[in-house]
């Protein structure tokens, strides 16, 4: 039986590193024969590196956040495995646990992408929202409010409730109540002329 460790490059880990997936720890061999997997993670790492170097393997995300799947479909490139009778399947895949550094880089990329999407959505929402004007209401007595409203009308302008709230920062219900009172007292009345806007 050919020992696979005899034929894979000794700098396999560094090759993996250039592919952005090293250092990795293989935690499952998927379709790789149990016996081959039993040869050790270093062997699998070198095999994966060799396939990646030859462009005959691909890296894809796994269902676990901190893992990737390295997959290759051309077992003929693995002559040692063929010779050993371990390469009868149509392809190989291994699940590799990423190092903490790789995992953080992967997570950071995902977060950056998510943040960018959120910023774009927020910009769209802000563009669609009407401008909100914040009004801080004053807390004054009803008598004081009534006096201020009368003074406002004494300037001769036609005013609706919105104008009064804008000018005096009073509660809407209070303004409506006082205006109704002033109408009953004959102080003010609905204006027949069109209300000036703006």
């Amino acid at each position, binding site marked *: 039986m050919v020992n696979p460790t005899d034929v894979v490059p000794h700098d396999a880990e560094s090759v993996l590193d250039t592919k952005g997936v090293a250092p990795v720890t293989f935690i499952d061999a998927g379709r790789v024969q149990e016996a081959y997997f039993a040869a050790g993670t270093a062997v699998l790492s070198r095999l994966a590196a060799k396939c990646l170097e030859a462009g005959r393997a691909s890296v894809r995300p796994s269902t676990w956040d901190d893992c990737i799947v390295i997959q290759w479909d051309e077992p003929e490139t693995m002559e040692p495995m063929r010779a050993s009778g371990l390469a009868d399947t149509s392809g190989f895949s291994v699940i590799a646990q990423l190092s903490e550094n790789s995992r953080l880089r992967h997570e950071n990329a995902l977060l950056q992408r998510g943040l960018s999407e959120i910023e774009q959505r927020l910009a769209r929402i802000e563009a669609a929202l009407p401008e909100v004007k914040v009004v801080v209401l004053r807390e004054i007595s009803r008598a004081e409010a009534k006096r201020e409203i009368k003074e406002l*009308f004494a300037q001769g302008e*036609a005013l*609706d409730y*919105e104008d009064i709230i804008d000018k005096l920062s009073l509660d*809407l219900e209070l303004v409506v109540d006082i205006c109704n009172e002033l109408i009953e007292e004959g102080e*003010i009345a*609905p*204006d027949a002329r069109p209300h000036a806007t703006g």
Partner: protein
Amino acid sequence: MPDHTQQGDALRAQKVIAQARQIGPRRLLPGSGRHRTQQVTLADSVYCVIAIPLRAIQFKRSSSFTDKHPNR
């Protein structure tokens, strides 16, 4: 002035001022040109009032002359 609080009570006016704790999204109702209108739902402590401009009686009387003769 009466407060309308029953199901189906409606306000119809040129201008209504409303306040509420929750204001839903605006919906554009189908129509064309100037007849297009929008719809919004207010919920929780809703208060709406018809807002017709008011004027002090003394200015209302004196202003009627200028209404008839806007150029003077």
